[in-house]
């Protein structure tokens, strides 16, 4: 459902965000970005690119329902060392503060502040005088994550509208329909990782949730014709066509 994009480097990140609807002045990536992985990759690179952080936070404030929350939490646990999670925590917490919505509490619970307080951005770390200024101007939120940066205004005029984003990335429509809840994570998992469809238990393991939660979500997805069970098997598959036509 969601094409993976392994483009690396900050230029590649800008191209991926451009495809996701941020108006960086660069060509967009050839494929729809994997949004949860994009957030994680951005958190790793943002200290060297303040605009990248600000635009990712802005995008998250407006389009947080496109993020599959459970998948984001699982990727954090699987791919982001515990000591490197503070930038992502600051990013998610910024969205929470600016929108007043608590969509990422489970992911945030896996993130801890940086071990020592310091400027977030490399440009201010490299110079002690700039570091002192960064500390002086740091927002309360950034102080809580031990990553000093000033408060900033979301730059909504540098975002594409939702219609453009879904037009360019049709697979995001189901994420929006399910508001990023467990059903969205299940659909992504079944598409990207067929082994997850071996059983409800396997799916629970791959999504990092309980079997009961998976069963409830699957019931909704089956009812809506988004998935089907192969005859005589417990195996699940993502319904690329409506179940009745499969």
């Amino acid at each position, binding site marked *: 459902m969601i094409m993976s994009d392994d483009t690396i480097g900050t230029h590649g990140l800008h191209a991926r965000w451009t495809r996701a609807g941020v108006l960086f002045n*660069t060509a967009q990536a050839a494929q729809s970005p994997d949004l949860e992985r994009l957030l994680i990759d951005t958190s790793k690179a943002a200290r060297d690119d303040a605009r990248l952080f600000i635009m990712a936070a802005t995008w998250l404030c407006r389009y947080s329902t496109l993020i599959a929350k459970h998948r984001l939490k699982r990727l954090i646990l699987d791919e982001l060392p515990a000591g490197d999670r503070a930038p992502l925590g600051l990013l998610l917490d910024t969205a929470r503060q600016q929108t007043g919505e608590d969509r990422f509490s489970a992911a945030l619970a896996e993130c801890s502040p940086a071990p020592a307080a310091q400027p977030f951005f490399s440009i201010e770390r490299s110079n002690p005088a700039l570091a002192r200024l960064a500390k002086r101007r740091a927002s309360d939120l950034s102080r809580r994550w031990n990553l000093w940066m000033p408060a900033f205004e979301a730059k909504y005029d540098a975002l594409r509208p939702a219609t453009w984003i879904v037009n360019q990335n049709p697979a995001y429509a189901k994420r929006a329909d399910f508001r990023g809840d467990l059903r969205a994570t299940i659909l992504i998992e079944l598409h990207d990782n067929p082994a997850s469809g071996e059983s409800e238990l396997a799916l629970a393991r791959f999504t990092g949730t309980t079997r009961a939660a998976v069963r409830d979500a699957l019931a909704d997805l089956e009812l809506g014709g988004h998935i089907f069970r192969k005859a005589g098997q417990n195996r699940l598959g993502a319904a690329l066509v409506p179940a009745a036509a499969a």
Partner: protein
Amino acid sequence: MAGSLTPETLDEALKLLGERFKEPIDVEILLVGGAAGMVSGLLPAHRTTGDCDVMIYQPHHVMAAVELAADQVGKELALPAHWFNSKAQIRLDSLPDGWRDRRVWYCTHGRLSIFTASRVDLIAMKFLAHRPQDLEDLKDLHVRPDDAAFVRAYLDGLPAKQTTASEISEARDYLEAWEIEP
């Protein structure tokens, strides 16, 4: 591919803007901000966002007609809404005196001539703004001793333009903290 304002797309858009602007008058336009840095090659294009910030129209009364033509061009090329905007004019105080003598011609299409703020003017305005992204831009702009002297004089002149004292004071702090390149 629709819409991203890459340097190539911007060139095409400005050319079309010159064709769509039909008023019988010569117009000069000054770009500032990220687009100015991008088209002048001073800042990496992929790191800038969004739009062309226009600080000056000369003569000023043509602004609405140019913006109307820009809207039309935006639709034709599927550019972002407000790709060519005048929001920067609310900070006219931040434009250093003497900018006209230092501006850099970028292109002329039809009756429109497009200029960008000079490197040293961009440096001055970025010290005044001093957000983290401005500091990153300043690193790319390689601030030299003569630039720093220019910015000091610029900041000294800002109180007369009603720029707030705290903004000027903070900008001075950043200038003094900056590692000037030889």
